[in-house]
């Protein structure tokens, strides 16, 4: 049983046509196993988080009661993208597991929404937000090494608190970028194969082999997103992460949580023009 389905093209060439659909179940199982293993680890084996010394009193005095984390535009992007992603996953895979409905139109419309929202996010994050805050940096890697060594029982200095985003969050974002861009790029090309508002139907845009590889990449990225979505939802509802999840709804987190998890020197909160409001120009 291969992971790809193959067919013979009219010219006699053996070409892949899509992934084998059992990978849907594999992706589901990987996601579920991950969350079970992680939950057991956190419950029974994980040590309490330890970080280096607290921040200075001067820094603390300048902090508002609510720490701005996500602007309204950033939150809207996140939830629109999330809605589009769920529609895409359900419309893509439910028919493959036997739930039949007219899925194609919903799928490409959701794909168009996802594409537009991601384009918006790229421009917004590049020019209006702290672009580098979501990318792993040297400090993240050094701290990850320290945490790993401490986990293995080796005496090592304490890691620093996180910047705006923990390393795990940054890595997840990077993986989602790769898979997301893969499904978007291939999905846009695949829209030439169905009737949409955008292009005339033309399946001869690429060779059979190129199309086949495109479908395979779209499928692999798609099933990967099943696992990634399960993992994302799991972390969003974990009790210790709820303040972060709430920040994606209300835009801010409490000063206490910020000080507990984040390093004010690495995630600098700008002084407020109106301290009463508690929100400034965070992203």
């Amino acid at each position, binding site marked *: 049983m291969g992971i790809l389905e193959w067919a*013979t093209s009219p010219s006699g060439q053996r070409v892949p*046509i899509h992934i084998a659909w059992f990978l849907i179940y594999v992706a589901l199982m990987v996601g579920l196993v991950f969350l079970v293993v992680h939950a057991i680890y956190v419950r029974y084996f994980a040590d309490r988080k330890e970080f280096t010394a607290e921040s200075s009193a001067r820094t603390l005095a300048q902090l508002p009661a609510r720490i701005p984390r996500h602007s309204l535009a950033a939150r809207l992007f996140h939830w629109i993208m999330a809605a589009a992603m769920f529609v895409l996953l359900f419309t893509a895979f439910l028919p493959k597991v036997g739930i039949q409905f007219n899925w194609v139109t919903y799928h490409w419309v959701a794909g168009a929404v996802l594409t537009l929202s991601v384009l918006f996010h790229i421009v917004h994050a590049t020019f209006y937000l702290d672009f580098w805050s979501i990318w792993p940096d040297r400090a993240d890697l050094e701290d990850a090494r320290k945490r790993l060594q401490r986990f293995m029982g080796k005496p090592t200095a304490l890691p620093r608190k996180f910047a705006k985003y923990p390393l795990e969050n940054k890595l997840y974002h990077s993986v989602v970028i790769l898979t997301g861009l893969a499904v978007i790029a291939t999905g846009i090309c695949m829209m030439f*194969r169905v009737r949409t508002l955008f292009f005339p139907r033309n399946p001869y845009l690429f060779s059979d082999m190129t199309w086949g590889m495109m479908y395979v990449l779209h499928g692999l990225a798609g099933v990967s997103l099943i696992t990634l979505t399960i993992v994302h939802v799991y972390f969003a509802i974990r009790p210790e992460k709820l303040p972060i999840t709430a920040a994606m709804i209300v835009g801010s987190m409490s000063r206490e949580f910020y000080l507990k998890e984040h390093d004010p020197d690495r995630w600098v909160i700008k002084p407020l023009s109106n301290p009463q409001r508690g929100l400034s120009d965070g992203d």
Partner: protein
Amino acid sequence: MAVIRDVMPAFQLYQPTSVADAQRLLEQNREDALVLAGGLDSMDWLKDRIRKPKVVVDLSGIAELKGIRTTNDGIAIGAMTTLTEVLRHPVILEKYGLLAQAAELVASPQIRNQGTLGGNVSQDARCWYYRAGWPCYRAGGNICYADTPVGRNREHAILHAERCVAVNPSDTAPALIALDAKFVVATPKGERVVDAEDYFVGPDLDITRMNILRLGYLLTSIRIPATWASAQFYFEKVRDRNVWDFPLMNVASAVKLSGGTIQDIRIAVNAVAARPLRLKNVEDSVRGKARTAATGEAAGKLSVQGAVPLQFNAYKIPLMRNLVKRAVGGVEEASWAS
């Protein structure tokens, strides 16, 4: 692609004598099995070596699938009843002439002698890209070769195309829909009875199937209720040659008149989409109206709303408009100028 014609691949032939045995064989062999009714569709697949089943289950020996019976509420036609038997049956000729007209226009006398009613409604699409074994959507692939800037699609769909643009080629299907027939399907979980229009599946729901039959399912009979017995019927089939041809389009209607007014109507067309279409919007629009040329004209225009022609089948839009116009107007109006 090299096609070896007339030399069928080897397979195990089973000839069960009961529906239960046939179902058991189909369940045992699952994807490896092919159901053989009259064989007029299946033999093409076998001789072209596009389908190479390990097992063929021939239904011709199952007596319970054959024959026409009158019931308390109409008639029941066994799925393996030949088209010739259908079109010659006195009760069908007297009360359900629409079906007899449709059956008589299927292919040629020889084919009608061998072909069955169940096979006619359950036959596969005739799109040549699909029949040639190309990996199109309907064959489980990811492309429609017919709906392209250069695809040959003169015979293909103008309505409800969803990736696949093949059409359903059955002549009897629209007649059965117009007669409000019920299809009886034996499934592993027991008997299931569905309305004729619900027996057919479009590519929006399942692109690899033309009907609801799945592994272990068998169409056993078709029941026609007396509701539309002896109504006014209209059937017309347009094809490239007068015998031995699939429809470019066909239309069937059953009309109940009260004076000159359309009291009730059922109308269906085929070869315009991947499943025969019951035109409910047309039915609703003409019900209660006088059966006049103007009513037929309006019905024809309504019927083609939303139609999208492909590169080479734009003619199907005026064709459908006119067929529906005549089907609503009835035989007397069939000579209207288009």
